[in-house]
């Protein structure tokens, strides 16, 4: 089972072959990352990781701290520029360009990728000088060129979805951590992305506030949003994920439905990682 990432057959399972997921026949993957590699100096952080995500799927990436899962997620929208590999989102293809040989045309494609991939950060990163509604409509207006009225209508729809419409004119500094993260999710949704990327969205939250964010995420997963979630929340992964990727030392060690990867892991590294969670869970 070692190095699944370089065996395209394994992670290109068409979800239609699995129970519980509805994919229209002939559907194309929303996101396909191939052989994503990252060197930080001497550090080989990503060793050719690949992932394919189909429309409507929720994929969770698990792994211990430092395994490279956040770097992998950030490589999907080029917040980290990978050393090697290719990312394709909704038909837009961007390859690694470690020696900066490609010019502004590649930057334009990266922006196209980013517009199609909404990102939710661990630290929320709301814009503190803008109100909640302004946070949401800023990019739709100034990046996509959507008229303000229309952008506000879209934003209000998503603020209502995350349960914060009544906070539309508040400033982020007056919101709780959980509320801020829900606004961040609404902000990402207002761009109407093809896929949502979550980078440990509950890790910076007070334990009492984790639930409200996970609930919003689970709702999105159940209504058929395409999502990739880097998380330590096993229960969420178990409940909401269609597939789970386990990352170890910069490569995917195991891929499969949560019942397989979480409940009955085959790879010894996955087993060891999960056994720690179990002992912790048992103590609770």
């Amino acid at each position: 089972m070692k190095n699944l990432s370089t065996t395209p057959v394994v992670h290109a399972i068409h979800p239609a072959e699995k129970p519980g997921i509805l994919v229209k026949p002939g559907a194309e993957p929303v996101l396909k990352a191939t052989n994503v590699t990252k060197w930080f100096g001497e550090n080989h952080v990503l060793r050719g990781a690949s992932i394919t995500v189909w429309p409507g799927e929720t994929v969770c990436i698990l792994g211990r701290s430092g395994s490279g899962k956040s770097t992998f997620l950030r490589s999907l929208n080029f917040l980290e520029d990978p050393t090697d590999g290719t990312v394709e989102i909704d038909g837009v293809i961007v390859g690694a360009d470690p020696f900066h040989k490609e010019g502004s045309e590649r930057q334009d494609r990266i922006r196209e990728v980013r517009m199609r991939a909404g990102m939710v950060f661990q630290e929320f990163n709301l814009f503190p000088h803008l109100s909640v509604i302004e946070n949401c409509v800023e990019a739709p207006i100034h990046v996509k060129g959507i008229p303000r009225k229309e952008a506000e209508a879209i934003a209000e729809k998503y603020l209502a979805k995350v349960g914060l419409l009544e906070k539309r004119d508040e400033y982020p500094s007056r919101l709780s951590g959980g509320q801020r993260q829900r606004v961040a999710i609404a902000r990402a949704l207002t761009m109407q992305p093809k896929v949502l990327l979550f980078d440990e969205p509950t890790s910076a939250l007070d334990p009492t506030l984790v639930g409200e964010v996970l609930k919003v995420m689970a709702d999105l997963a159940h209504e058929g949003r395409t999502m990739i979630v880097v998380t330590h929340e096993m229960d969420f992964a178990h409940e909401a994920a269609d597939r789970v990727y386990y990352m170890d030392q910069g490569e995917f060690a195991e891929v499969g439905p949560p019942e397989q990867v979480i409940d009955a892991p085959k790879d010894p590294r996955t087993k060891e990682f999960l056994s720690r969670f179990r002992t912790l869970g048992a103590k609770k």
Partner: protein
Amino acid sequence: MRFRLGWAALLGLLAAFVFLSLNVEIDFIARATPFIVEGIWITLAVSSASIVLATLLAAIGALGRLSSNAVVNALASFYVSFFRGTPLILQLLVWYLALPQVGIILDPIFCAIGALGMNYGAYMTEIFRAGIQAVPLGQREAAAALGMSGSTAFRRIIAPQAFRIIVPAIGNDFVAMLKDSALASTVALHEIVWRARNIGQKEFKTLQTFIIAAMIYWTLTIVFTAVQNRIESRLAAGDRNKAVKG
């Protein structure tokens, strides 16, 4: 209360020193004061024009200092190093006395504005750069992740946040500039100090005229510091009020 009493007592002592131990000549002071006060307009004009020039240069300089282009970066850091590394009065004299040697003859007021603006611009470049860098990396990443180009992110996300950090510093520098503009008296600009010296020396009463000049600067400083505090608290209150509205 004690604080205010202390201030009042010290002011009284100063006044007593001026009026008693000196040969106070009310009619001279009455004659000299309007002449010196008239210099306020030149002081304010020079300071205002210089702070505008300095702000523009600082904005360009800060972008240069943060540029990944080596040539632009070198230009900006050279500017900062040179103008911070030489005395302001020397720079002023270059504008007034040395430039005519190469055929550039400028009115004293432009010499003063050029010298003060370029010198303060160099100091403010570093303040602006620090202000821009103080905006957390996560803000740039969030803007980038939403598909914003570098310039859109700077205009819409980074600059407005940096501005709030920078505004108090611009205010401080304006107050400092009010006083440094006195150096322009050396290039025969008829501002407050030049007038105080001129009218005082004629009648050998510079102590009186310099005290008048000092009072004028002091008053200006107190007024503009108060204005600056108002602006700052208005900026902060603006955020709070808007926040409450929702």
